[in-house]
Each structure stands twice: as C-alpha cells, then as structure tokens.
C-alpha cells in the first residue's frame, strides 16, 4: 500500500533556520535511517520533499470568493515541514520506522486513497 508521511512540529521553520549545518546533517541522517528501517520492514520510500516556511505559502480560497490569500490555509501551532510518499505492507511498519526521526516531530501516516489496507 501507499502512504503519505507528514512531518510537522511547532515553529518548524524557526527551528530549522536556527540549526547549524551539523545539526541539519544529523536530521538528514535520521531520514536515511527511516529509509533503512522501512526497507528492513519490506517497504520503500518513493519520494519526499522539504517545504518552505508556511509564510511563503499562498492559498486559493473556495467559492464563491476564490481569492488568493498570503500564508497557509490555516495558522496552526504545528507547521508542516516536509513529507514522504512510501510503499509498505502496513501503517504499523511505517509508524515503527518513523520513530527514528527527530523526537520533536509529530509524524502523521495516512493511507493513499484507492489502496486497500
């Protein structure tokens, strides 16, 4: 099955820009560890991206107005910092593998529609 893995934490962008290169490398090491842990459970990372700060987002609002506003669709304490798309046999496998990623993160695992769990 395919899953989307969302990585979020409070004040993500501020934390990220305050990190040294060494600290960032340590975070990337955990992403590689996630990849490794997932493979060990028969899964696979298909892709992933880091997102710019939510300040840089622009949002198209729904009908009838359909105006474009600056910023994310909702201000929230936890900001989405990045995501992966993975293949795995179960959400449990993904959640277990995700534990190696930084402890400040909330990591959501969501099934992609059209795949049966």
């Amino acid at each position, binding site marked *: 099955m395919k899953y989307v893995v969302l990585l979020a934490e409070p004040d993500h962008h501020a934390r990220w820009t305050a990190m040294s290169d060494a600290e960032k490398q340590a975070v990337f090491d955990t992403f590689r560890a996630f990849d490794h842990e997932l493979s060990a459970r028969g899964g696979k990372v298909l892709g992933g991206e880091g997102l710019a700060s939510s300040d840089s987002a622009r949002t198209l609002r729904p009908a009838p107005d359909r105006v474009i506003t600056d910023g994310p669709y909702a201000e929230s304490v936890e900001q989405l910092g990045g995501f992966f*798309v993975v293949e795995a046999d179960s959400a449990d496998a993904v959640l277990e593998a995700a534990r190696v990623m930084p402890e400040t993160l909330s990591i*959501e695992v969501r099934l*992609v529609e059209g795949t049966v769990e």
Partner: protein
Amino acid sequence: MKFMVLLVGTEGGWDTVTPEQRQEVMDAHIAFHQAVADRATMLAGEALAESSTARTVRHVDGEAVVTEGPYAESVEHLGGFYLIEADSMELVLELCRGLPSSYTVEVRPVIAIEGYEDTRDWE
C-alpha cells in the same frame, strides 16, 4: 521550481454528492492534469484517505506514542496533494483555479535541501 499543492476541505461530502457532482470533480482533476502537463510538469499527486484513518507518532518522555487521527485537529482536512514543477507560483495558482471550486488550495514552495540529495526521484 517545485511546488507542493495541498488540497484542503471538509470531509464526508463524497458520500452525499450526486453522481453528476462526482463526475464534475473528476473531470476537474483530469483537466488539471492536462493543463499542468501543457504548461508545467506533474511530479506526483495522491488522494488521501479520510483524516480520521490517520495515525500519528510523537515522542512523549522519550517514548514513541501512536495516536489515532491527524497531527493537527482542524475543521478542514488535507484530502490530497499534487507536486508540480513550474516556472512560478503565479502559474501554479492560475492552474489551481481549474480545481473544484469547493476546495481550499494551499501552494507552498519546495526547498532544495543542501546536504541531502538522497531523495528518490518520484518513481
């Protein structure tokens, strides 16, 4: 430049819409795919299962704890996304106007992460 397009809306509506309305939504996505192919590049896109089916892992006092539900409680939920390569955010926003008008659509630039080039190329 790459952009993440987040499709946000209220859930539970899919079961209550008419077949005609469902077809309209599907047609809008098909047209969107075509418009993106014509004027930009579609890298990835998925519809997501309902947010109530999500599970979220957090660390509490050093222990990994899994809870039911998405990471953020909100009225509107993430229902899907697209990942698009395009010349500008303005172009992406313009293309997004073709998506169903009931959606809230957030467009966010993707950052190039220095020091981490292992990301798979969207197989």
